């Protein structure tokens, strides 16, 4: 499933994937388009694009605030799809949102209309933090019908049978949650990351680690621990928030995002085990 998808092709290329996240429309629509494009220039391989939901129970304060800014700017699922269509990027886009927005979209009840529209707009995959694998059959079916990958999160608490259930549903990549809690940049890398990656070693789906990654050093450390990719959200959203608060120009914020993206991508590349180090 993975190898045939747009997302699968990124991982097939062999480099560690750098997957940044921003909330679409944060702090407002036009600037947000520029920010996403800056991430691609900085070396993003896939972008997770947040479609804001009013009750983001898996998010920490940084992303909660970004969601509020975007919603106050009038972001809706329909505007989100227009946003995606307007974006000038070549890399795959993954939509990250909560299940109620997917469930409500369109006139027909259930996830199918949302997935159909997402596919039409060019979305390559979905991550839905409040949809565990047990509840995912209808969305899985719709994603299969329209060729989208469905990414699932594995938490530090996920063990045993639950891993099996997730393995049956996941495609594209598995989002390895580096630590318990909500999203948010941290000063260190959790040891839980190594344990989580060890539990998934046998899976043939790419493993991308997220939650708390902030610097190039973090990225290096996580790739060297065996991750196939890194996911970075809050550290980038912080840059958008600072720009919005200080009245910085869109161009200046975009430049900072591009530089941060480059730092993270280069960090990830440094983490690739060399022939010498793997001896």
């Amino acid at each position: 499933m993975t190898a045939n998808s747009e997302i699968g092709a990124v991982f097939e290329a062999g480099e560690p994937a750098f997957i940044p996240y921003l909330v679409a429309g944060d702090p407002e629509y036009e600037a947000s388009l520029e920010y996403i494009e800056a991430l691609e220039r900085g070396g993003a391989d896939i972008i997770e694009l947040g479609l804001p939901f009013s009750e983001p129970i898996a998010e920490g304060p940084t992303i909660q605030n970004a969601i509020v800014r975007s919603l106050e700017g009038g972001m809706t699922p329909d505007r989100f799809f227009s946003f995606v269509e307007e974006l000038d990027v070549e890399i795959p886009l993954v939509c990250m949102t909560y299940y109620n927005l997917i469930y409500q979209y369109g006139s027909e009840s259930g996830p199918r209309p949302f997935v159909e529209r997402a596919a039409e707009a060019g979305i390559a995959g979905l991550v839905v933090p409040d949809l565990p694998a047990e509840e995912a059959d209808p969305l899985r079916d719709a994603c299969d019908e329209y060729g989208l990958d469905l990414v699932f999160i594995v938490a530090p608490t996920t063990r045993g049978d639950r891993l099996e259930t997730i393995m049956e549903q996941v495609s594209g990549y598995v989002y390895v949650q580096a630590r318990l809690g909500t999203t948010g940049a941290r000063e260190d890398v959790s040891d839980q990351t190594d344990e989580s990656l060890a539990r998934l070693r046998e899976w043939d789906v790419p493993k991308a680690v997220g939650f708390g990654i902030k610097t190039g050093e973090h990225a290096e450390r996580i790739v060297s621990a065996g991750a196939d990719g890194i996911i970075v959200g809050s550290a980038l959203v912080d840059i958008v928030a600072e720009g919005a608060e200080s009245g910085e120009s869109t161009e200046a914020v975009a430049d900072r995002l591009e530089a941060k993206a480059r730092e993270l991508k280069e960090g990830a590349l440094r983490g690739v085990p060399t022939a010498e180090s793997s001896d």
Partner: protein
Amino acid sequence: MTTDDTNGQFGGYGGQYVPEALMPAIEELRDAYERYVLENEDGFMNELRAHLADFGGRPTPLQRADQLSERYDTEVYLKREDLLHGGAHKLNNALGQVLLAKYMGKERIIAETGAGQHGTATAMAAAHLDMPCEIFMGETDIERQRPNVFRMELNGATVTPVTTGRGTLKEAISETMRDWATNVEDTHYVIGSIVGPDPFPEMVRDFQSVIGDEAHEQILAKTGDAPDSIVACAGGGSNTMGAFHEFRDKEDVDLIAVEAGGSSLEVDEEAGVAPNSATLSTGEEGVLHGARTKLLQDEDGQIMESHSVSAGLDYSGVGPELAYLVDEGRVDAVNVDDEVALESFHRVSRLEGVIPALETAHAFGYLEENPDAVGDVTIVNVSGRGDKDLETVVEETKAHDLDVETASTVLQEAGE
């Protein structure tokens, strides 16, 4: 304990829609619920019943309301959950869950609260059972329910203000879920109503079903028969299902859930606000806080801010089982507005010497407006006492310019 083998599903409502980090804890909780609550392993239920009797003060009385009976020309009985320790039905569930957390080896209790009744009950139960406790409460609710905040703190709980959104119950639940996702390994989240992911809706209902069990026995003793109707207010729905569950299969007993009609049933789509909390009457199916249920939401699926003069009813969702029973036609969902509830608060206090919670005043409001709809014998579940609401009632009575006989006295006393 009673249960249906629903496996967390109520006709398509229910389920488990939570972040992956919480799923193992929810599975662990379902296992503990089945073992200790349903099968009474290690004598859990015996211990809980003893706590409910000795610490909680169960059974609560079923009182004939003489003046209301005369006014409505029907037999009105009050199930006096306001006389439970802490002043509300909430202790039934809080004691059950805190004790269960102890049996599970958890070391910390967290809870959310709207009106403060659930937070108070949880803080009391945690103090009684010697567990550290943190309560999340929206800053708006902290402002309008100060006596309960003080009570929680007196019982040793930390009250953490939630500043996101409008600072009410919806935001407090989201914040408590975030804490739980961070500290899930040693912490139990005591959800305060029949909402949230499976097994909470079933488990909380079972802990609250003692209300209907007792009421049934008591009404049989007093009248020799089941009542014609049971009236209970409905926010999330725990006192509602607690009172209804015993009577679910008795089709000749009408079950009437009274929601908060707020200031209007009309929705302000532009502002994303429903000026009511009438989820059963006006909500649409969706997914929030771990379950598929009826919600106040806009056409995109964004959750609307709700409103009620009563903080305890001010919630955009409702328990999935209640949503199902309304769809099935087993429960009638009705609503009364803020003014009717306020008037009832004064009336019942004056006529019966019982100061009901503003939540419960909605149930009495329905009785006032529809005395012919409840049959010859009705039980009103007095979900809690109104002491916590006095400040709100004073302000709102003035704001609504209500012509209430006792209002001037209340206002005068408050000004002293």
